C-alpha cells in the first residue's frame, strides 16, 4: 500500500443541501422491449415523456429496447445501465408483461448485492413478482388495462405513501454504496435496510397498541427530526421485526424477564404515554431512567423499568444508525472498505483530521 497515490478531496462545510429537505421526486426506470407499440402500464409511463398537458410527478428513464428472447443477464444489464444513467439516488423499477421477469431478476441481484447499483425503492409491475426474488420490496401491481392517467396517479400515490417513505440519501453517497468500494455482502445489507417501512405492517411480537407506544418512545429517545412527514425510519417496527427473529444482543440483566416479555411489560406500563403532553412525556422518560417509575400494573418494578428502558434505548439508537441515510447524516463511510477481500480490501490512506479522500462522498454537516 505504501506509495499508492490517493488524491485528496476538498471538505465541504456548506449547509445541508436542498436535495435532502425537499420531498424527493421519484424516478421510475421503465423496462421497454422492442414492441413498437407498448400498451398499458409501460405506455402510460413512457407517455409522460411526451410532454403532454400535465407533467408527471416523477421522472422516467427508459431502458434500451430489449430484443425478443434476450437472456436474463442482458435484461439486467440494460436495467442497470438505465439506473446509472438516471443518476437518481432512489428509484422504482417498472415493467409489464414478460419484462416483469427482468425486473424481478434485477431486484434479486440488487438485494444480493451482486448488482453494482443502489437505491431500489420499489417495483411497479403488471403482474406479481415471485416473493423470493423481491422480499420486502414495496410493490405496486397495476393491471395493463389501467388508463394512462390512473396509472400515473397510482405511481405517484405509491411513491408518496409507500415506496418513497423514509429518509433520502444524496446521490454521491448512494454511488459509493453502488461502487466497488463497498463489498457485495455489505451492499446487500444496506439495500434491504434502505427499503421503506410498511406503514400497514402488523406487529409480530407486540400488539398494535404496544407498537404505537414504542413509536412514541422512539420519537422521544431518538428524535429523528425528519425534514418532512414520512421521512423518518419506523424504528419501532424494526425492533418488533428483530425481536420476532429472536435477535439477542448476547446478554440481559438477570433482574429482567426475557427480552420480548420485557418489551411487552415495559410498553404496557407506558400505555398512557400518548395521553401526555410532550413535557410530561419527557419527564416520564427521565423518571424511568432515574429509576423512579414503577409499572402501574405492578409487573415491572422501577429498577426493572430502568434496566429495560436502557436496553430499549440501545436497540432504538442502533436501528437508527444502521440505516445508510443516518450513516450519511453523521458523516460515516467506513462500510466502504472494498471487497471482497485479500488484496481487494481497501481502507484509508488519509487518516488525519480534516482529511478526505477523493472517492469519499460529501456527507454534508446536518447541524
Amino acid at each position, binding site marked *: 500500500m505504501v506509495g499508492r497515490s490517493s488524491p485528496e478531496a476538498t471538505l465541504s462545510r456548506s449547509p445541508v443541501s436542498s436535495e435532502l429537505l425537499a420531498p424527493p421526486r421519484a424516478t421510475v426506470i421503465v423496462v421497454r422491449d422492442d414492441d413498437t407499440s407498448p400498451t398499458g402500464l409501460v405506455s402510460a409511463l413512457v407517455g409522460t415523456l411526451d410532454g403532454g398537458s400535465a407533467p408527471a410527478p416523477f421522472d422516467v428513464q427508459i431502458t434500451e429496447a430489449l430484443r425478443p428472447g434476450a437472456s436474463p443477464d442482458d435484461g439486467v444489464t440494460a436495467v442497470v445501465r438505465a439506473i446509472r444513467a438516471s443518476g437518481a439516488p432512489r428509484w422504482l423499477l417498472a415493467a409489464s408483461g414478460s419484462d416483469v421477469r427482468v425486473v424481478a431478476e434485477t431486484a434479486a441481484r440488487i438485494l444480493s448485492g451482486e448488482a453494482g447499483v443502489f437505491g431500489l425503492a420499489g417495483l411497479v409491475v403488471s403482474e406479481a413478482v415471485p416473493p423470493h426474488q423481491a422480499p420486502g420490496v414495496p410493490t405496486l401491481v397495476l393491471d395493463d388495462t389501467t388508463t394512462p392517467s390512473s396509472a400515473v396517479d397510482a405511481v405517484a400515490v405509491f411513491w408518496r405513501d409507500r415506496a418513497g417513505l423514509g429518509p433520502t440519501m444524496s446521490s454521491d453517497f448512494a454511488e459509493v454504496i453502488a461502487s466497488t468500494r463497498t463489498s457485495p455482502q455489505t451492499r446487500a445489507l444496506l439495500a434491504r435496510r434502505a427499503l421503506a417501512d410498511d406503514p400497514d405492517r402488523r406487529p409480530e411480537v407486540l400488539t398494535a397498541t404496544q407498537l404505537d407506544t414504542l413509536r412514541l418512545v422512539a420519537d422521544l429517545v431518538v428524535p429523528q427530526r425528519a425534514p418532512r412527514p414520512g421521512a423518518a425510519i419506523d424504528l419501532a417496527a424494526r425492533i418488533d421485526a428483530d425481536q420476532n427473529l429472536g435477535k439477542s444482543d448476547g446478554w440481559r440483566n438477570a433482574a429482567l424477564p426475557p427480552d420480548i416479555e420485557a418489551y411487552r411489560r415495559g410498553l404496557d406500563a407506558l400505555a398512557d404515554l400518548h395521553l401526555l403532553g410532550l413535557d410530561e412525556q419527557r419527564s416520564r422518560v427521565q423518571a424511568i431512567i432515574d429509576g423512579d417509575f414503577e409499572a402501574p400494573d405492578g409487573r415491572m418494578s422501577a429498577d426493572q423499568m430502568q434496566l429495560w428502558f436502557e436496553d430499549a434505548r440501545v436497540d432504538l439508537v442502533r436501528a437508527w444508525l444502521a440505516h445508510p441515510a443516518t450513516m450519511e447524516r453523521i458523516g460515516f463511510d467506513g462500510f466502504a472498505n472494498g471487497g471482497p477481500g485479500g488484496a481487494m480490501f481497501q481502507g*484509508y490512506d488519509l487518516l488525519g483530521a480534516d482529511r478526505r479522500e477523493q472517492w469519499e462522498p460529501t456527507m454534508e454537516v446536518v447541524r
Partner: protein
Amino acid sequence: MNLDQMSTYPDDEIVDAVVIGTGAGGAPILSTLAARGLRVVALEAGENFDPERFTQDETEAVAINWMDERLSSGENPTAFGLNNSGKGVGGSTLHWGAFTPRPDERDLRLRSLTGQGVDWPIEHAELIEYIERVEAFVGIAGPADYPWDPSRRYTLPPAPRNASSDMMIRGCEALGITATDGPVAVTTVDREQEHAGTRHACVNCGSCHQGCRNGAKVSMDTTYLPSAVAHGAEIRPGSMVHGIELDEAGEVSAVVYTRDGVEHRQRTKALFLCAGGVETPRLLLHTGLANSSDQVGRNYMAHGATQVWGTFTEEIRSHRGYPSSIITEDTMRPEGVDFVGGYLIQSLGVMPLTLATTLVRGGGLWGDELVEAMEGYRYLAGVGINAECLPSDDNRLVLSDELDEFGIPKAIVSFTAGPNEDAIDEHAIATMTAIVEAAGATDTMILARTAHTIGTCRMGDDPADAVVDADGRSFDVPNLWVCDNSVFPSAVVANPALTIMALALRTAERFLASRGEGEGEGTAAARPHGVAA
C-alpha cells in the same frame, strides 16, 4: 479458514487430546501438540468463516460474537455479546482489538508488593520468554524504542496514526506525559505467515472489531490454526460441548458434544478446556468437574475501560485507521494515590453503533442529547483505559435455572467494582480529561464501561484456593488442562490476549513434558524451575 485438506479422526478413536475452543488459548495449544505429531481434535462452538465474508456493518458483524444469552447482575453488570465475547474458528481473536501491551512485572506480584490482590504462580521473566515467541510468530507492530522497556524490540513498523492518535500525542505532550505508538498485533507490511499464506498489510480500514478481511490483524485462523491443521490437527466447527466423561481412575475419557443437531462422543486421552472466562467455568460447573476448591466461577474480573471523548473543531472521523494506535504506560503506577495497581491509556477510534451503545449505557444519554452527540460523531476523538481489577469473592459466575438450547444452564455473572477499581477510575478520568482538554477539546464526555472477561478458574500453587496449577493442569482431574483468561489469578493491566497465547504455549509444553516427551526447540531456558519429564 481453509479446512479442505484437513486430517479427520473418527469419534471412536482415542485421540491424544481434545481442545475445546479455538481462540487465543486453544489455538497455540492445538498447533504445538500437532507439530509434535499428536493426534488432536479441536471442538469449536462457532462456525468456520471465510474472512472475505466479514462485513464492517456493525449490525451483522455480530456473526463473530458470542451472542447466546448470558445473564448479568451486580452494580456494574457486564454487557456481554459484541464487547467481549467471540465465537467462531479463531474465537475472540476474530473480533479483538489486537492491542498487545505486555504484562507488567509489578502486576504479577501485586500481593507481594502491595498486600492486595494475588501473585501469579509464574515468574514474569519466564512469561516474557513465551510472549517473545508469540510476538515473533504472529508479528507485532510497534515503536522502534519502547519508552517503558528499553530492551524491547518490535520488528514491524507501527500502525499509522489517525486523528485520534494525533490528538492523544498532542495532549500528552502538552502535559509532559510520555506517549508513543502502541504494540499492536497487526502486520503493517505484507507478511508471509507459515502455512497461512500472505497476510496483507493493514489498509487502515478501522474495522478490526468487525473481523479483518485481509489477514493483517493477528487472529488464530490466520496464524496458529493453519499451522495446526498443516500438522494434522482437526478442527470441528459448530460443535458445542455439553458433557465430559471420566473413566474409573477419574481421568477424562471422552467429550460429549452436539454438531448439526446430532450428539457425538469423542474419546480422548487428554482434554484442554479453552472456552474463555465465561464458557469454561460454565462447562465445569455444568459437569461438576475440577471444583474441589469451590473456586470455579469465583473472582470474575473485568478491566476498567472508561473512555473520555472530546469534541474538536476538525473532522476526526475516528473510524479510519487502526483504532487504538497510541499508548502511554506512564499511569501504570501513579504516585500519591490510595489505590494499588494502575492503568494504561490508549487512543480511541470507534464505530458509530458501538459509540451510541456506550453513550446510552455508559453516558446515560437520550433524546436530543443522544442524537446531537451522534451528529457530532465526526468531531469526536477519545482516549480510554485498561485498568487493574482486583479479584473479589463477591464477583462470581454461577449457573441459572434457565437452560440454553443444548440443555446447559445459562451463566449468571455478577460484577460490582470495588473501592480500588473506583479509585483508579476516578484518577484515570482526571488524567484522560486533562489529555483531551490539553489537545484542544471544546467539550468532553465521560463514558463508563468495562472490557474483557477474566478469572473464574484461577491458577495457583494451593489446591485449596485454585482450580488449576501453575501449568494450567486441574488439581482434581489429572488429564484436564485449562488455558484462557479464566486461569488469570488477577486481571493484570495489559489487555489479555497476548498473555493467553503465551500461557497456551507454556501449558502445551508442560503437558508434553508431563507425558515424558520433553519440550520443543528453544524452550529449555523457558523452564527455569524444571519439570519432571
